[in-house]
């Protein structure tokens, strides 16, 4: 009888011990899973090329990881971009929204008269331009599309490049695609223009004899005197540059990078630059549109 009781007690205590260990294990496991979920969710939230790199959409891209220029910007500059009220580019977007609704020309047409709500009709534009435009048999970028609408449908004079109006409208239209990955088409009729843009990218130029690739493909992440070189993507344009104290077009940046190596820049809106714009957007296909970005 005594022996039997001992056996029973032993069994109970044994059971309790295993149970406790099991519970601890279970808790640990749960914690582990929860932590993992947290990490994954953070990853998903950050995979926009700003805080974490993204994979290029096209596997032929020479860059295996895409980093937005945001990643290389100074801390205060990043903070400025993320704060909608502090982002000086927001003023341009607001002005663009006004221009969108403004009726002009003899027939009193606004952009909205044809395209209605930009947040619906313009959602894709910032992602896919430049595009092939058959009537002119060449590529056109957003600025040129806006001016075509202005001339053909509103019967108004076009806006010159770098005017406040054109920058504002372009920024407003592209901002509708904010957060969506860039995805330009380089096949079909766009193919030869893509090839030209690519050739431009790899061509050494200027007295300093450098190509875009020398800085933005071979040396990104390294400092060039006081500048930290980025991969030189187009996803934030039009961009507010602190150095310019103004919003600026991608072609203004191209001219700056050309002059930096003492090369003769091309004209705003020139075919050479639009082809380069196509090629550059292809290199950045997969990165999110950040318009209006803020950069040093």
């Amino acid at each position, binding site marked *: 009888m005594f022996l039997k009781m001992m056996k029973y007690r032993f069994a109970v205590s044994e059971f309790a011990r295993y149970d406790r260990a099991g519970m601890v294990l279970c808790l640990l496991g749960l914690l582990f899973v929860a932590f993992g979920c947290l990490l994954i969710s953070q990853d998903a939230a950050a995979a926009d090329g700003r805080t974490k790199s993204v994979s290029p959409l096209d596997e032929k891209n020479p860059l295996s990881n895409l980093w937005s220029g945001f990643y290389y910007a100074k801390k205060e500059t990043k903070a400025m971009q993320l704060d909608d009220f502090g982002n000086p580019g927001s003023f341009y977007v607001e002005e663009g929204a006004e221009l969108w609704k403004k009726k002009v020309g003899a027939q009193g047409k606004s952009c909205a008269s044809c395209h209605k709500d930009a947040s619906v009709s313009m959602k894709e534009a910032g992602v896919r331009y430049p595009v092939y435009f058959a009537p002119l048999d060449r590529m056109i970028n957003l600025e040129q599309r806006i001016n075509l609408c202005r001339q053909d449908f509103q019967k108004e004079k076009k806006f010159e490049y770098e005017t406040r109006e054109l920058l504002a409208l372009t920024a407003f239209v592209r901002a509708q695609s904010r957060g969506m990955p860039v995805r330009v088409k380089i096949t079909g009729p766009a193919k030869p223009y893509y090839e030209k843009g690519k050739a431009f990218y790899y*061509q*050494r*130029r*200027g*007295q*300093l*004899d*450098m190509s875009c690739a*020398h*800085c933005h493909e*071979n*040396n990104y992440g*390294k*400092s*060039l*005197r*006081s500048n930290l070189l980025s991969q030189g993507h187009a996803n934030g344009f039009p961009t507010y540059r602190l150095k310019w104290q103004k919003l600026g077009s991608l072609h203004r940046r191209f001219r700056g990078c*050309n*002059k930096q190596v*003492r*090369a*003769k*820049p091309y004209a705003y809106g020139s075919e050479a630059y639009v082809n380069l714009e196509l090629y550059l957007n292809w290199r950045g296909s997969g990165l999110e549109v950040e318009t209006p970005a803020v950069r040093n």
Partner: protein
Amino acid sequence: MRFRFLKSGSCGCVKTLSWQRSLVNGACFLVLVTFVILAFISTNALIAAETGSETEENGLVKFQIINLIHSKSIQHSLSGKPGNPKRGEALMVNRKKGNCIACHGLDVFAEKAKTKPNIYADMGEIGPSLNGIAGRYQEGELRLLLVDAKQIFPDTIMPAFYRIERFTRVDDPFLNKPILKPQEIEDILSFLMKQK
């Protein structure tokens, strides 16, 4: 008949001759190659002989391995005059001139950056450090490297500081002008030669 025989015979003769000639050629080539290799070994032996009198702690004779890969060089001063290292240093940090520190670091400059940050700070990281550069290159090689680095590193980002041809779309103010003048090259070179 006889004529024909002779003809075909001579033909055969020529054939064997050319075959023999190629053998002789081959042998000649081999001898030449051996000579070249021997010459290489002997120059190295000469170098060893120069320091051969001294011995290391471990008992072996001291020898110095030199890098013969970058054997291209420009031996003579471009200006015919020696360089001034002080002026060379100023040219190296000047953004409109050499601007070498846009890409290269140098400990001597890093030290000076502590007291004169506006002149020496923000050294770049694109090129290798120039510490001890005079120990890695001979003067003539460094001169060529400054004149046209692409002669040594074909794909390099480093500009050619004394060349005016084979460029694309140089902007008007810089057209047909080298980045640096001959004396400026010599000045920078004399500064580099002090970095042992």
